[in-house]
């Protein structure tokens, strides 16, 4: 949803986010919604400025969000408060699941299909009865015995029971699944008083239906957990039941941290994906282009088009060298053999098989988990290239780092050859960022960067040019990819900067015969006649001279408020995804107040206030003809809005796409002061654990590390701090690191505000100043008192605003779906005093 669409919400739940402080300008829409009468709710371990402006604030212990949201789901189902006219036809509530499916309450805290040896799930029993539901999620294959059964979906619709009586239908499974999540259990596990919880559940329910919608805003407070994907899933299930997807003022808004973090996920600098959500080929599964396309193509729904997107990408990368005969150069793409994400990278460095590294605009020594281990890794590299605007910690670990200050190493011991290169910033280079609502916005070049600063585009381009030269004479097969790679961008000026508009045009796509820009992804072909670097972005540069990301025409007071003339929202400039759901099954708006798109019978097409996220002329009454095979969009009926799903419906129950269960279940964080009150399984059984030296974990309710710890951000600093800690204005506003400590705990330990304190975990120790504050309340969890401590993680030794690196404390553990760590919920110890390294002789 668009951020500005929040003003149309009747209720906004901010959870896993301190939106007022960390996304201040987006929060203005929440404030405006409040002024228009919306109810604002904040659920968070800390009372923050977001809480101060909310109508209802509920404290919870970090990492217990699924218990809370599961409680809401149960409340809606048991009190029959869900939006039936929406959820019954638009979600898979009525779909029948395989008979063998079992959920954690029946099965020791595990879902059926658990393979103890492999530490993962087999997903046969999670499938729709008699068929396999494929997923196009990169890196998420359906682990089933007979994947061929996905073609069953082209033969018939999944079996459903619209009366919801069948014990194997999703509705009944969900009722059983969440039966234990009573308000009493919510209180016992999360520490939130049940009265506050019920008030919130009621507010969500009250603001649902034809006339009303609600939104959820979350941030890293949900993603930084070993159960993060399932937390977001729990919120989506709630939103599906309430009919809040694809409608004005409805949705789940992810508030992301960096200016182009959405762009770098879509056009990914990520290991498991190729541009715009195509899977990076896997060695075992995808030996040839044919097997790749067979495995990855979903036979029904929009993703049936995947071969067009993949072949066009290969054409964009390898140009004329990509031919039908050589699988369009498919073999030149590197294949992955496991998890190559950032955390395994840390171990690859400490183990010595990763030998060289480029760090481009990231300060991993501050931002990476287990920061001491990261530094050990960097110290083991042969060479390291750091590109940044300032001298960041990642570039100076060898002389000012933790290993040096703790006396473990001397600079002379470190053999790494290091380059620190000045990088240009926005304003000094032209290009696009994609913001948190999928808005691709161009920024101009106004001045040159200082001295030898260059854009990273220029750096990579010129490095590639040099490498092409170095490999020019090679006849080795392994050197073909760099030799065949297209790199024919026009260059500008004496420095020969590559033209970023030309790169954007390649992302948009063109016909290979005449290099004419394509109008959008519908024009792409799988025969090599089109090239496209990122199919989902296609259409942002539909013709020469028409860069829609530069468009700066916002709606005036008479406009429809979607601002289609302001930049370009992928895909196809749609502002609200799945907006077919803003109309009822017959195609009429749910209400005048909540209209967005509708079916125009006379014109025979969808029309309205947004660009329809649907086949333009697909009538609401269209039904697939199941007497013959149905593929692609033909298999999706005119009343099914969720066109990227193989059955056209929102998956409340996910047969495929998640590695740790088709429904969320509350598992405790890997490090926690509490036992799991729900199941025998303590933490996420599928979570990735790395039993490695320097990465030891604490026991459950570990007496040596008795306090819950969460990390977070401040308004004035940006993530790992490079662009704010060294800038006088922002550094002055937040000059130094600190830890927030509840007064009750402070009193117990004799700590007062501004005292030095030491926080410790098995990974390391940090010292910082105490800030004693009631913003953190002691919570009663399962009868005993739990104290939670908070620490901002921006700081390091560089710049003006300094402090110890909070990530010295965190460990490397990860969510099984997305390899995300758990810096929002861990345990630690706290004592008054300082570390000896800073003040020899001071009592520690």
């Amino acid at each position: 949803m668009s951020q500005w669409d929040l003003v149309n919400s009747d209720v906004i739940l901010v959870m896993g986010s301190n939106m007022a402080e960390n996304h201040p300008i987006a929060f203005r829409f929440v404030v405006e919604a409040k002024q228009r009468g919306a109810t604002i709710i904040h659920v968070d371990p800390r009372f923050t400025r977001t809480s101060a402006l909310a109508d209802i604030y509920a404290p919870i212990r970090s990492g217990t969000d699924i218990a809370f949201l599961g409680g809401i789901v149960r409340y809606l189902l048991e009190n029959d408060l869900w939006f039936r006219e929406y959820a019954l036809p638009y979600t898979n509530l009525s779909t029948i699941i395989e008979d063998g499916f079992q959920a954690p309450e029946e099965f020791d805290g595990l879902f059926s299909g658990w393979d103890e040896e492999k530490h993962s799930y087999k997903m046969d029993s999670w499938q729709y009865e008699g068929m396999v539901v494929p997923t196009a999620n990169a890196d998420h294959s359906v682990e089933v015995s007979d994947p061929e059964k996905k073609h069953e979906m082209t033969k018939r619709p999944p079996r459903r029971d619209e009366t919801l009586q069948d014990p194997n239908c999703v509705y009944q499974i969900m009722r059983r699944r969440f039966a234990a999540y009573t308000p009493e259990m919510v209180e016992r596990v999360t520490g939130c008083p049940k009265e506050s919880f019920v008030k919130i559940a009621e507010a969500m329910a009250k603001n649902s239906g034809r006339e009303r919608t609600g939104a959820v805003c979350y941030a890293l407070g949900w993603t930084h957990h070993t159960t993060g994907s399932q937390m977001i899933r729990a919120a989506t299930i709630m939103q599906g039941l309430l009919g809040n997807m694809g409608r004005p003022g409805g949705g789940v808004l992810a508030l992301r941290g960096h200016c182009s973090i959405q762009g770098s996920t879509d056009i990914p600098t990520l290991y498991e994906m190729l541009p715009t959500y195509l899977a990076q080929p896997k060695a075992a599964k995808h030996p040839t282009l044919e097997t790749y396309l067979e495995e990855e193509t979903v036979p029904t729904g929009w993703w049936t088009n995947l071969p067009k997107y993949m072949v066009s990408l290969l054409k964009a990368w390898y140009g004329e060298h990509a031919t039908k005969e050589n699988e369009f150069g498919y073999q030149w793409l590197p294949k992955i053999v496991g998890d190559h994400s950032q955390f395994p990278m840390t171990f690859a460095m400490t183990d010595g098989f990763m030998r060289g590294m480029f760090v481009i605009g990231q300060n991993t020594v501050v931002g990476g988990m287990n920061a001491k281990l990261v530094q050990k890794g960097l110290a083991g590299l042969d060479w390291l290239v750091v590109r940044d605007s300032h001298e960041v910690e990642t570039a100076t670990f060898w002389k000012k780092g933790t290993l040096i200050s703790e006396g473990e190493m001397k600079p002379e011991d470190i053999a790494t050859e290091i380059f620190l290169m000045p990088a240009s910033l926005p304003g000094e280079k032209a290009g696009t960022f994609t913001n948190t609502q999928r808005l691709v916005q161009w920024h101009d070049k106004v001045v040159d960067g200082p001295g030898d600063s260059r854009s990273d585009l220029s750096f990579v381009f010129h490095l590639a040019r040099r490498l092409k030269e170095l490999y020019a004479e090679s006849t080795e097969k392994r050197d073909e990819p760099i030799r065949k790679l297209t790199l024919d961008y026009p260059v500008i000026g004496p420095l020969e900067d590559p033209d970023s508009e030309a790169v954007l045009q390649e992302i948009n796509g063109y016909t290979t015969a005449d290099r004419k820009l394509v109008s959008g992804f519908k024009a792409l072909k799988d025969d090599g006649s089109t090239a496209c670097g990122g199919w989902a972005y296609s259409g942002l540069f539909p013709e020469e001279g028409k860069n829609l990301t530069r468009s700066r025409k916002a709606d005036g007071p008479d406009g429809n408020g979607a601002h289609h003339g302001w930049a370009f929202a992928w895909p196809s400039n749609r502002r609200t995804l799945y907006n077919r759901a803003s109309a009822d099954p017959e195609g009429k708006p749910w209400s005048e107040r909540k209209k967005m798109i509708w079916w125009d019978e006379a014109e025979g097409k969808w029309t309205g206030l947004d660009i329809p996220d649907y086949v333009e002329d697909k009538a609401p009454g269209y039904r697939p003809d199941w007497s013959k095979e149905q593929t692609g969009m033909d298999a999706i009926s005119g009343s099914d809005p969720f066109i990227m799903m193989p059955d056209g419906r929102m998956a409340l129950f996910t047969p495929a796409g998640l590695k740790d269960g088709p429904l969320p279940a509350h598992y405790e964080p890997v490090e926690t002061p509490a036992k799991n009150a729900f199941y025998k399984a303590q933490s996420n059984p599928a979570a990735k654990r790395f039993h490695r030296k320097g990465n030891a974990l604490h026991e459950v309710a570990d007496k040596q590390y008795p306090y819950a710890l969460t990390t977070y951000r401040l308004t004035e600093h940006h993530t790992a701090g490079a662009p704010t800690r060294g800038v006088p204005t922002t550094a002055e506003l937040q000059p130094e690191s600190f830890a927030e400590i509840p007064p009750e705990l402070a009193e117990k330990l004799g700590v007062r505000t501004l005292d030095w304190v030491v926080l410790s975990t098995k990974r390391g120790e940090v010292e910082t100043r105490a800030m004693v504050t009631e913003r953190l309340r002691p919570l009663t969890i399962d009868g005993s008192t739990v104290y939670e401590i908070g620490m901002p993680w921006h700081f390091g030794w560089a710049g003006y605003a300094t402090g110890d690196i909070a990530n010295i404390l965190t460990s490397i553990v990860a969510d099984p779906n997305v390899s995300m760590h758990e810096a929002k919920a861990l345990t630690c110890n706290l004592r008054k005093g300082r570390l000896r390294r800073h003040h020899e002789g001071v009592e520690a």
Partner: protein
Amino acid sequence: MTINRRTPGKRIASFVRDWSLPRQLAGEPSKSTAAKSTTSEKLQPRLKLADKVGTSICPYCAVGCAQLIYARNGKVIHVEGDPRSPVNGGRLCPKGAATMGLLNNPERLTTVKYRRPHATDWEEVPLDWAMERIARLTKQTRDETFVEKLADGTVVNHTLGIGVLGGATLDNEENYLMKKVFGGGLGVVAIENQARP
């Protein structure tokens, strides 16, 4: 240093002319006409000095506030929120408002710093030298670690010897070229950004 050549008489006259109080007493509003002086007559907005203006997007968080960057003689003289934007309507938060401080920060890196193995300090090196050295190191490490096939014959055509980190603060075009060149060109698989940490 400018030398004040005015006589005491002229100075008194100019003081009386610019003195706000009598005009305030005479009923002129203190915030407009009574506040005018010879100096204030000559004041003009900083933006008027700009010889160039461009639209930009805030380099910090993902809200995506739009900015206007004003420059004069190749130097940024002002950054403000773009009032036309439906995202921010001209507003910026404390980070966004610090953008000019970031761009013009005297602490910015301007040359390539190079640290030899085991050295205890940086050296400054020419950009061109660094580029060539990095290209050669990249080639060397790639060549030494490139794997065409695993022991069981599975084709992988990759190197695990090189890693690439970063992207969430960079342009889409930069991310695209990084994945294309390092992945599609060199066979690097460990390409990651801040989406996870």
